[in-house]
């Protein structure tokens, strides 16, 4: 004797979209700027 089949809910798909915001900060002011050598790049 087998019990009747009954539907159960499946676990819905759920994406981690916050991960897309895990990014390196801007390094612009840390990098050598071509064509600006000699000029003040910090001030």
């Amino acid at each position, binding site marked *: 004797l087998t019990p009747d089949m009954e539907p159960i*809910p499946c676990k819905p798909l759920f994406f*981690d979209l916050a991960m897309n915001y895990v990014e390196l*900060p801007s390094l612009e002011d840390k990098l050598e700027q071509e064509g600006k050598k000699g000029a003040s790049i910090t001030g």
Partner: protein
Amino acid sequence: MSKDATPKEALIKAAYADVHKFGNNREFDKAVKAVNRILGVAPDDPTALHCKVVCLLQLSKFEEAYKFIEKNRLSSLVFEKSYCEYRLNKQAQALKTIDDAAGAQPLPPNLKELRTQILYRLERYDECLDSYKDIIKNTSDEYEDERRTNLSAVAANLALDKNKDVPEVP
């Protein structure tokens, strides 16, 4: 300040170039080594500290990232701290981290997205649904399909509650 004034500055500049390059190539195992070179000579460099946390998160080293944030008291990295807590299954703390930092200010997109996912894990589906509707209305990016899938997951969970109507999803 003139460029490359000291060996230390030259080292930092070269290491940042590597962080930038490896970051762009998504080689975060190499990027973190470059960051460590910076922190070796400039342990309080806030940009390098931020980079290290991001590299650890990208490498799925959530426990290590969390400890690093705590040890260095990186209170400005609200998103990264809360994201660690979210991935370490400390959902209530993750929510508190965001809400304590935000006050009455409207949340920037990264915190709003994360907070909505935390509400889902906390099974606060009503608030989660409202939050997703708001994000979807105000966002156009490349993840709209995935976000609608998440919205459907919220609706599916709400539909399991027999006391509630199945919500209409936009």
